[in-house]
């Protein structure tokens, strides 16, 4: 993976309801706190230069693959493996989708064969373990504790 310089996008709203952005980069290694402090200072200094109003900001870190492989023949992003995770707290669901899910991830026999993801599959277990290890959560910050069910969905 190659790391790009992180950036901040300050989004402004004009009198017609259209939005435009100021995009500025930071050196690699900049922390979110450092970027936010700089963003606040920049936003304050821009306020007197524009008739638009600041509505939101996004600090973004990006990595990209330096040696992208070749997709499997027939692989399609519309065929999605949808994983429903259990979480702590009162909002018990977190959803994570994997585009182009392989046939090898599904149950091969019995009810659900070909569309229910086999939670005992070693590759699935490795993925789920990585999700839990990274302290993933849902949008309400309820921590993921384990996978509940997973199956194929078509997003055509």
């Amino acid at each position: 993976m190659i790391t790009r310089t992180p950036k901040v996008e300050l989004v402004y709203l004009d009198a017609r309801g259209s939005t435009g952005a100021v995009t500025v980069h930071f050196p690699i290694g900049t922390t979110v706190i450092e970027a936010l402090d700089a963003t606040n200072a920049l936003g304050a200094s821009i306020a007197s230069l524009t008739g638009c109003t600041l509505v939101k900001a996004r600090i973004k870190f990006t990595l990209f693959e330096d040696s992208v492989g070749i997709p499997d023949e027939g692989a399609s992003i519309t065929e999605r493996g949808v994983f429903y995770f259990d979480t702590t707290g009162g909002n018990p669901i977190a959803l994570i989708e994997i585009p182009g899910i392989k046939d090898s991830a599904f149950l091969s026999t019995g009810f659900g064969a070909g569309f229910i993801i086999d939670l005992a599959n070693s590759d699935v277990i490795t993925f789920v373990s990585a999700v839990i290890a990274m302290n993933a959560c849902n949008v309400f910050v309820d921590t993921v504790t384990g996978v509940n069910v997973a199956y194929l969905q078509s997003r055509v």
Partner: protein
Amino acid sequence: MALVNTPTASLKISYRDASGSNGSTTIHVPFATLAAVALAAGEALAATLPALTGCVVTGFSLSYDFVEDAPGTPTAGSRVEDKGVFQWLCANGLHSTFTIPGIKDSVLQADGRVDLTNAAIIAMRAVVEDVGAIFAGISGSDIVTLSEAYQRFNRTSKRQSPPHR
């Protein structure tokens, strides 16, 4: 008025399939997660995906979002297409540019150049250029000084047009 963070940061893993179409997986982590920690976890997670997907991973991004909790009202007649273009010289000799939408006429000269003696412009330059300022060009090189600044009108995009146009 302040920028308030959303509860989570989001990790977006990008894929490409056999037809060349792009898709993604989004995973949330608590907002307090350090970027370095989240990015390392993202790499670890991305390493598990080739076994599960026929698509290839092309990269991923980590976003920390903030919203203004009490946004002001835009000045009447302000347009995001009316840009102030600021081109900066970086320490490595390359240039970096950003634009400020809805630039005010009060900071412009009659010929469309930005008035570099305007107090608000001087203040903004100090924030971007001064020692300790961390702003950089896309190459990561420190922004040193303002090279050019002028007004430019961008074409209105389809999304910016009024409905039914």
